[in-house]
């Protein structure tokens, strides 16, 4: 299982802190992009927010890209551009 975390405005608008995704549901090439496509099926708002270009991703607490390949037990975090400091 992949553990998917949501932060900031994304967490609030999707009303979701966290969910689990079975790696096998992402097909032969389980990339971050495949995960986005999978999650976007959850509804129009998910479709809009996950593909807005304002949705960054970290895999195992390190910034990642759409091409990053996921493996079982990875922690994937989705969040808007950061605004600390």
């Amino acid at each position, binding site marked *: 299982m992949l553990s998917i*975390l949501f*932060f*900031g*405005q994304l*967490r*609030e608008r999707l009303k979701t802190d966290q969910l689990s995704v079975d790696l096998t549901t992402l097909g032969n090439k389980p990339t971050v992009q495949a995960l986005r496509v999978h999650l976007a099926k959850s509804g129009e708002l998910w479709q809009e927010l996950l593909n807005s270009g304002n949705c960054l991703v*970290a895999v195992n*607490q*390190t*910034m990642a890209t759409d091409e990053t390949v996921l493996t079982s037990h990875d*922690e994937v*975090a989705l*969040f*808007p*551009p*950061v*605004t*600390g*400091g």
Partner: protein
Amino acid sequence: MTTKAFDKPDYIKVQNADFDMAVEYQRLRDVEVSDGAVVVFVGLVREFSQDKHIKSMFLEHYPAMTEQALQTIVQEARDKWPLGKVSVIHRIGHLDANAQIVMVGVTSQHRNAAFAAAEFIMDYLKMRAPFWKKEMTTKGDFWVEAKASDNDAAAKW
């Protein structure tokens, strides 16, 4: 929440509690190091954001990633400049207007290295450390939007 590396004198903390400038300045002046230059940056909650009066702010973060992200940024600064002590403290949770949010402190034998490293750490923290701000204002609650100027600031390094 506390990380203390023993091979290099970094003090990196993510905490809800306020910090005390006198204590933090003394930590940077540690006599072991004897650097001639100390630069400290503090970011405060502003009372106004554009036309909105800010009552308080909520700072969310990604606990498992935050300190690691800050440590990576500090290490990049150490790779670029000869630094003595480095401190980074970032607060999370609810903060009132005028409260302290973040402190970056750096010492070096060279003042220009200390200035550059402190500014670099802030620029990268703004772009890469997983914090999100929500402002509670007299006109409602708003998540702060990332600024393009913050990416531009980091690009200069």
